[in-house]
């Protein structure tokens, strides 16, 4: 049980990271690879937030009511993740635009069939 308590968020986060990376490495369809990218981003964000968590902490927002002796979780990773989410959606939008354009040129999204450029 303690293992679960200590690691469940890390397992979730890195599970997503690994599944995302696997999708990007193995799938040959471009949209699939971009979905993998989205999953990878989510995993990284979940990891960053888990790093900042404090056991029995509260959200880092002061309210008029007295806080009591409760500590607050670290606000820095949350700020970083807000930045990372927006960067992620920016990359995703650009990637999908490229996919649409690629489809217009080649009529397929299968990366194996798109081999104009070679080593």
């Amino acid at each position, binding site marked *: 049980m303690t293992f679960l308590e200590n690691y469940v968020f890390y397992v979730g986060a890195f599970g997503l990271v690994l*599944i995302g990376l696997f999708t990007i490495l193995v799938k040959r369809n471009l949209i699939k690879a971009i979905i993998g990218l989205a999953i990878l981003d*989510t995993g990284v964000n979940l990891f960053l937030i888990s790093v900042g968590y404090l056991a029995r902490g509260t959200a880092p927002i002061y309210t008029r009511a007295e806080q009591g002796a409760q500590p607050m979780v670290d606000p820095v990773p949350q700020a970083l993740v807000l930045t990372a989410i927006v960067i992620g959606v920016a990359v995703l939008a650009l990637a999908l635009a490229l996919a649409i354009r690629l489809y217009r040129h080649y009529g397929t999204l299968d990366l194996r069939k798109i081999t104009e450029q070679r080593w």
Partner: protein
Amino acid sequence: MILIVSLLVLLMLVGAVAACVFKDLLSAIIAAALVSLIAAVLFYFLQAPDVAMAEAAVGAALTTAIFVVAIRRTNRYEQ
């Protein structure tokens, strides 16, 4: 509490695997949206309401919308 979280994490990972294996891209996108949505709930459990809000709005809604637009302009099925 910990059991609920573990269950959610499990569901999220299943969703991610589903997003990886589905041949129908529309289903894969919905599975990816599910992953984002559960991640938003997990952010809330981790005392990060700001991030939960952003993830729910961006990951679950906006990203899904752009994906759907993109597959509508390309191809729905993975060959």
